[in-house]
């Protein structure tokens, strides 16, 4: 029974981190109604920024957040402002602008290959940092310290975004835009500014996810792809646009991935994840924790 507890804890911790990687995706979808295929690449950019910030300054990985959050926020803000907005304007009469999805796919390729050109395909990780390889040993149980940090970061980020959307003026504007962008515009909300900020928040969340991954994961140009697919499943599972849904969806996948292999081959757990994904689509298309309507 010990085993199960240990795997369950690992699954929940890792799952919350998966949820964090998907958080930006869900925020951007909730507001822009666009599936951002470049999200994995944004995560990769976040990991590179975190990697260089930690390696060059020798800071505790989580102190790098001071740098990573603003850099990633403005990166996302201007990415939306300069690259995506013009296409958005061309398609403004459509509720779910499809061309923008194609643009984000293009962004994904450009970002991944640009990093490949600049930094090369090597695998990097931070050698000397206070979190690397640290384990908590309780009884016979091993709990990874960097994952514990990642778990806390995920919960805090989700709470912060939730609070921001519920309690601040800007948050209300964002929610209004996501409900009905035309009505919001009529009320004097600057629609495109809201999009920029939502994109910035989504990108900053990807940056935070990058920081949580860097202490125990490798950094390389195509790393985003590994988390991307998982991110889409999590977001649909939890409900597109739902913040708690992303974290809980992530945890469900984390637990399946962690407990599953103890009873079957590891490759089968992927099958279970996809089967669950299909089941949710059939039974509750709005996701486990999604609302039938938008925010």
């Amino acid at each position, binding site marked *: 029974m010990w*085993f199960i507890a*240990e*795997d369950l804890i*690992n*699954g929940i911790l*890792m799952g919350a981190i*998966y949820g964090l990687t998907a958080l930006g995706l869900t925020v951007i979808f909730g507001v822009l109604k666009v599936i951002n295929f470049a999200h994995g690449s944004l995560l990769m950019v976040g990991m590179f920024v975190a990697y260089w910030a930690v390696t060059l300054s020798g800071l505790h990985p989580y102190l790098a957040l001071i740098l990573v959050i603003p850099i990633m926020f403005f990166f996302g803000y201007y990415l939306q402002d300069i690259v995506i907005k013009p296409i958005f304007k061309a398609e403004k009469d459509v509720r779910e602008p499809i061309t923008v999805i194609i643009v984000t796919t293009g962004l994904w390729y450009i970002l*991944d*290959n640009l990093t*490949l050109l600049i930094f*090369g*395909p*090597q*695998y*990097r*990780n931070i*050698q000397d940092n206070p979190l690397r*390889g640290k*384990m908590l040993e309780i009884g016979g149980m*091993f709990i*990874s310290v960097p994952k514990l940090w990642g778990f806390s970061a995920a919960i805090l980020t989700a709470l912060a975004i939730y609070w921001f959307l519920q309690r601040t003026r800007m948050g209300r504007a964002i929610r209004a835009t996501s409900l009905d962008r035309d009505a919001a515009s009529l009320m004097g909300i600057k629609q495109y500014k809201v999009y920029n900020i939502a994109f910035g928040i989504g990108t900053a969340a990807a940056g935070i996810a990058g920081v949580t991954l860097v202490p*125990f*994961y*490798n950094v*390389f*140009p*195509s*790393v985003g792809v*590994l*988390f991307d697919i*998982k991110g889409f499943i999590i977001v649909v599972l939890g409900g597109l646009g739902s913040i708690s849904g992303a974290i809980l969806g992530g945890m469900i996948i*984390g637990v399946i*991935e*962690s*407990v*599953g*292999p*103890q009873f079957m*081959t*590891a*490759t089968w*757990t*992927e099958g279970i994840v996809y089967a669950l994904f299909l089941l949710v689509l059939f039974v509750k298309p709005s996701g486990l924790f999604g609302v039938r309507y938008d925010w």
Partner: protein
Amino acid sequence: MKERSIGRKVYVCVLAFAFVCSMAFLADRPALAQPKAVKVGNILPLSGPSASVGQQNRYAQDMAIEEINAAGGIKSLGGAKITMLYSDSESKPEKGVAEAERLINTEKVHVLTGCWNSAVTYPTTAVAERYGTPFIVPVSVADKITEQGFKTVFRIAAKDSWWTRDQFVFLSDLQKEFNAKVSTLAFVYENGDWGKGFAGGWKKLAEKGGYKVLLDEPYPSTATDMSPLVQKIKRANPDVLLLVSNAADAILLTNTMAEYKVKPKAIIASGGGHADPSFLKAVGKNGQYLFDIVEWETDVNKPGVKEINQKFKSKYDYNLAGESVDAYIAMYVMADALERAKSLDPKAIRDALAKTKLTKGPAMIASYDAIEFDETGQNKYAALVMVQINDIGKGMERISVWPKGARRAGYKPLFPVPVR
């Protein structure tokens, strides 16, 4: 009026500059001036999950081609230079097949080489066979690649059944040398053609050798969390763990095993990700005492090894890996065949390749003494070396330990590995 003439002067200057530049650019490309050039299509994973190793292959081959061209190209073809056309497979079989079609039909290449991933090479060789284009396979080790009855496929590296065979011979030699008994094994391997091929071999060999297999576990190479797998290994508690991994998962697995303090008597890896130069850097101390089987090691005692490795290192900042050496050798095998073929006719090149008997030249930095192909196109003499990763005062390095004749002087492998 005056202003306008200045504008015109500037315009003329710019034009003249552009002209000079373009001439310089043209003059810089001798391939255009040569009447004949040998076109070689090279399909490699240059982006995607195997980009790191694909790039290393490319560097090694670039270096070989540069050397061959600098030494006067293919002399029997009037000094024809070799032009390499790279295309990216992204590790996807369908992409490899499409690229092979394109290289043969559109680019009219004379020879094909690649594709690193066995899963890509396997269907791609069928395309080459259909058009009769000779295909030199440096490193894809899946047995079936040379067992299709094809006439145009030639492989430099040892095939995977030889790898598994040698791993088990090594294991029994190790037990004899250290008088220690190994009775239980665990197999953990990436869930692709390569890993499954190895696992199939291991199963048969384990049965023959009387070992008990406690765990037989494939895993997806794209796994983002290795702790569940590591937990499984830990609970199975095998004497020896056998691994097949690509680079990202090899790093993650090694680090996670160190975190969970999984310490079998020995870990034996199968090259690939474990032989990737970024592996040593990324795992640091966690990789200590790991055994790895490879085609080649920098301490192989053959003439030219040090110089060629030094040249590569100064250019690209890391040591040659076994796979890069196979890629490098492949280019010299090709040049040798072209020299003897005296023609760019695919059939002539194929026949020359089939008659290869290479015993000297830079290709002999290999750990064995001759290159000859058997009737299936497999290099008969390809041999393997077992190394142990250890720190003997100069940081973590790969030290040859087996076969005993190849063992680095003064080094005694550690087995069972000490528990830290």
